[in-house]
């Protein structure tokens, strides 16, 4: 293991993490919901009466972020996404993420942030598992093939 000091951004990432924590905190305390992106999206695919509006409002908020970030965040803090994967990999990855997050009842937000924050052993197992397989996936692609 070698640390990538050039790309390491501890303070900025900590600051972003604090915003994620504040958003998750506000969502449970004010709206009474777990902030889990995969669950929020999945509820829009099989909509139930009276259970749609809050999901749409939340997703619109996320969608507004790249536009608002240009106004509120210092320009040095906004990095244009670099997407290395080819289209075939993107399609495969999307399918795995979509199916897997539903099967496992959550993703990085629901299990990783909210679940670990509320000390859920179930979410700890999920988070350790998806991180382990994320490490493994990158190892296979970058170092084994």
């Amino acid at each position: 293991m070698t640390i990538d000091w050039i790309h390491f951004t501890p303070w900025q990432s900590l600051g972003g993490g604090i915003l994620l924590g504040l958003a998750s905190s506000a969502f449970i305390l004010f709206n009474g919901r777990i902030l889990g992106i995969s669950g929020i999206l999945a509820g829009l695919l099989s909509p139930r009466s009276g259970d749609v509006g809050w999901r749409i409002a939340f997703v619109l908020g996320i969608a507004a972020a790249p536009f608002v970030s240009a106004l509120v965040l210092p320009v040095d803090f906004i990095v244009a996404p670099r997407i290395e994967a080819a289209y075939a990999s993107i399609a495969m990855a999307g399918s795995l993420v979509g199916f897997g997050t539903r099967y496992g009842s959550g993703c990085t937000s629901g299990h990783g942030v909210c679940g670990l924050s509320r000390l859920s052993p179930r979410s700890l197992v999920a988070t350790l598992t998806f991180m382990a397989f994320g490490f493994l996936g990158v190892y296979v692609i970058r170092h084994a093939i």
Partner: protein
Amino acid sequence: MQHRISEFLVGLLFGLGLILSGMTDPSKVLGFLDIFGLWDPSLAFVMGGAIAVGFFAFAWAKKRTVNFLGGVLHLPTNSQIDKPLVVGAVLFGAGWGLAGFCPGPALVSLASGQIKAAVFVVFMLAGMQLFEMLGRGATQAQ
């Protein structure tokens, strides 16, 4: 309406957090997942910052029966560590490592006009729909 505004603002705050943290850059995410290569530990700080704040909020939420706006407080009740949880996390982790996108950052990048993010989101929704069609069965939505 008050509720819709608060949900919108929470989504916005979450999206800004993803952008500031570096999570919306798949290359940075892959740099974090590349522990056997040139490793960028930044995303551990994202997780640490989020949990340091969330821990107090959820401790508070557990003591309450209603939320601050007077509505139901939906805390998960399923505590079973079962096969769907682990298999689902395996598939999700593999997909995450393959492209560097998880659901939230993919939505942000879609909104900022990234074509590959749009393709990712279409296939992600298809994967979710496939799960719905195969029957959610024993698993519970979170």
